[in-house]
């Protein structure tokens, strides 16, 4: 039995998802199922249940993709789009790009459904696009319509399973006649029909539910295309049966298709090379012409048989859809269109922006000076002092690592005071803001005579790596401080972000900091807790301190 993917029967959604992907992915880019997820899941176009979150997925989480519902839904959609000729894959099966046929689906207007109808008729097996289980020589939608027409206009779902979708070669008239004759005879006895269906499915090791699932998509398509409509039928069956009746529109389509020569891959491959090219081009543009596109500039005669059809196909017009039959390599040779030249980089791809360019060239050095007064006594400083006394030979990095690990579960109630203590240890006056005071939106502030540095703090419980969101809040802190002047603040003095780790998307955060500086003239400095710990330990160990002025013009990611 021919097995269609089962992404559901809602064709509107399948088309809408394609349109959304087309609108949001560059025509010159390859893309993956992860890109599809990233666009379709947050917009509610496919269900997200079962996904652990696109971000985690894209960061290389090693979760089992086979259990990710949205991933598999996207994969099935991609398979449908390939089957319809709107996507194609090259050497890597799960890397896609839009085809010229996909372009026209996206640019169609009131004629979109007509063109999609042609795409459904264009599905034929075997082909060079998709491999399917079983040895089917089948143009399924044409054969379903043909079978309906031959069987008093109706076909039930189970008849579709037993009949058209199970044919081994629908170009064989005898096999088609036998199939119709068998189905007609089985309509007289429901018991015999069930027995025949059960035997056939058992032989193919498919359960009835699974077989039913394979028909959901084609039945949804037949209804959506208005080629068939559901009908409760008593007249043609022993007992009342739920069937699908071919509509007038379906009959018109069938009549038109049957007047043409049905060309399959084997016929195509039998053509000489130049004829293959001419035939493909004519077939494609005929499809576009008949679905309402203006091909007048292309000077291709499509309303009568072309030279290849006259010579090789009995002077008849044909049914053949190159984008649904031929490999991408062959299609590029024939149509000469440009291949995509890059891969879409997801929002979460750190490589989207060149890392090196923005992380370098920043003056991140902190100057230490000799401390005049020991004015930093607090709980943390005592802890650090005792560690240093007990392990005088341990290097600073390992103390920093151990201490940082001990703070990893801190919520903001613990983490904000910790940050304030660290700045106190290096010799600065740092205050944590009280809750709920709108004009003091920053989480802490370093105060100096006539100036101040607002700090946006992200505890590890809030986010383990600093994100762009924290940078945006640091910008807002600076704007509010400048606007409302609740503390003295110089326009050029930096605004600060302190998080647990520096950002994962370092280049993206660094570039945003540069963009903000370039456009607003506001400097934002981003610290991880390890930098603050390093400064604090050095200050205690070496009896040093750091001046306020060391922080006033810092910008970018600071790694002490």
């Amino acid at each position, binding site marked *: 039995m021919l097995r269609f993917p089962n992404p559901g029967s809602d064709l509107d959604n399948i088309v809408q998802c394609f349109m959304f992907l087309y609108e949001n992915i560059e*025509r010159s880019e390859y893309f993956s199922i992860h890109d599809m997820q990233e666009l379709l899941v947050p917009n509610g176009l496919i269900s997200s249940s079962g996904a652990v979150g696109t971000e985690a997925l894209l960061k290389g989480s090693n979760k089992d993709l086979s259990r990710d519902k949205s991933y598999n839904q996207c994969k099935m959609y991609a398979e449908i789009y390939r089957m319809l000729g709107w996507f194609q894959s090259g050497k890597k099966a799960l890397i896609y790009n839009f085809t010229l046929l996909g*372009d026209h689906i996206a640019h169609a207007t009131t004629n979109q459904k007509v063109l999609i109808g042609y795409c459904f008729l264009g599905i034929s097996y075997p082909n060079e696009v998709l491999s399917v289980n079983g040895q089917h020589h089948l143009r399924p939608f044409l054969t379903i319509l043909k079978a309906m027409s031959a069987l008093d206009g109706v076909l039930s779902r189970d008849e579709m399973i037993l009949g058209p979708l199970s044919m081994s070669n629908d170009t064989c008239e005898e096999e088609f006649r036998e199939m119709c004759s068998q189905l007609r005879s089985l309509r007289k006895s429901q018991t015999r029909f069930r027995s025949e269906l059960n035997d056939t499915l058992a032989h193919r090791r498919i359960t009835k539910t699974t077989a039913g699932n394979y028909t959901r998509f084609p039945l949804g398509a037949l209804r959506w295309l208005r080629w068939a409509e559901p009908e409760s039928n008593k007249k043609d069956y022993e007992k009342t049966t739920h069937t699908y009746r071919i509509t007038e529109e379906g009959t018109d389509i069938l009549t038109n298709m049957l007047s043409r020569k049905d060309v399959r891959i084997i016929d195509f491959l039998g053509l000489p090379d130049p004829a293959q090219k001419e035939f493909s081009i004519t077939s494609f543009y005929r499809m576009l012409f008949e679905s*309402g*596109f*203006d091909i007048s500039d292309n000077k291709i005669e499509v309303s009568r048989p072309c030279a290849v059809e006259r010579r090789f196909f009995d002077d008849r017009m044909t049914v053949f859809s190159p984008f649904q039959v031929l490999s991408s390599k062959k299609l590029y040779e024939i*149509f000469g269109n440009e291949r995509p030249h890059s891969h879409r980089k997801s929002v979460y791809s750190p490589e989207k922006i060149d890392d090196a360019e923005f992380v370098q060239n920043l003056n991140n050095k902190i100057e230490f000076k000799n401390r005049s007064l020991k004015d930093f006594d607090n709980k943390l400083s005592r802890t650090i002092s005792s560690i240093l006394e007990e392990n005088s030979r341990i290097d600073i990095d390992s103390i920093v690592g151990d201490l940082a690990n001990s703070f990893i579960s801190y919520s903001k109630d613990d983490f904000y005071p910790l940050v304030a203590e660290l700045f106190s240890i290096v010799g600065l006056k740092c205050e944590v803001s009280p809750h709920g005071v709108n004009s003091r939106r920053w989480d802490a502030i370093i105060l100096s005579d006539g100036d101040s540095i607002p700090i946006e703090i992200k505890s590890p419980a809030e986010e383990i790596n600093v994100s762009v969101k924290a940078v945006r809040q640091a910008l807002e802190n600076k*704007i509010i401080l400048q606007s409302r002047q609740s503390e003295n603040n110089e326009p050029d003095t930096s605004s600060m972000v302190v998080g647990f780790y520096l950002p994962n998307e370092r280049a*993206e955060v660094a570039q945003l900091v540069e963009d903000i500086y370039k456009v607003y003239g506001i400097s934002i400095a981003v610290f991880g807790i390890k930098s603050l710990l390093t400064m604090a330990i050095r200050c205690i160990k070496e009896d040093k301190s750091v001046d306020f002025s060391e922080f006033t013009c810092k910008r970018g990611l600071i790694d002490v």
Partner: protein
Amino acid sequence: MSEILKVKESLTGYWFKNNESPSEVKHEVDRTEYGELTLDNGEVLDSPCVLCHDIFCINAQIDDDVFDVLEVSQTKKLCPVDAIEIENKSIVVGDSCISCGLCVVSCPIGALKFNENNVVSANNARDSLSSVADRVSLSDFQIISYDDFEVESEKFLRSVISGILKSKSKTLTINRLITKAMSKLGVPTYLTRQGDVNLRMDAISRIGTRFYLVEIETLANLDSPRDILDDVAVFCSRYDVDKELVTGIIVLTELPNKRTEYWELIDDIERVTGVRILTVPLAGILTLLWNNSELIVDDFFLSAQNTSGRNAVEKSLGRKLNLPESCNLIEAAK
């Protein structure tokens, strides 16, 4: 062989029998009736759908020259939920319709209306029409008589918002509605590509040399002004555009209360960075759309001193808004 072809509609259309032309179309006050169309011969009838050349109720008229890199990615469909289509030569509106009225106001002769419960329907009656091979263009057709509408009401506006929130993808629905509605109101607006780190705003508009970076929200919060700050920084820096030529727009379904930080922050941002952020209520956009008025976005600089979009809408409408006092659809309620 690789260019994308244009659609040449092969659908036949209709025109008035004896080649009569419409001389006047009047609309009822609330568009609950089809337009009252008067032909040259004096005959008066309910405006019928003629399947016009452009099919204005389905096809979006895409403005060019907003931002060239985005031109190819704009959907050509007008309806934000794809609820309207041609079926058997008739305009059919599906159940997913949210009653935004984009299609209703786009028909030059008023062949669509709001039914009971605000569902949209098209007049597919063809008694007064003959079939024609070449569909007739209505692009130059001018409505001569145009009654003042008061279609906007709190109940109706809230039902549209509810329809948006219940639609399959509320973000996509509202984004498409806003961009198409703003374009129709004379502010050509494109949706940006999701995931494009250089164009982070939801949409971008352009009037003359000025760019408007648009954030569209179903819930007012401080993220929107922050988003605009980010949008402006990234856009100006990476496209080398002068900050003075850029304005932010936040479109909201409901306006935040007076005492929220939102309004003060809008003031702070302008004071410190010079970036002006306009707050445009969705209800204002819809009302102006339904009334065939103009959207003058710069009138919507709302701030702590003026938290109401009512004056800006009424200025364009030329009449009072049919909304109660302190209605958060158009102004800060408390």
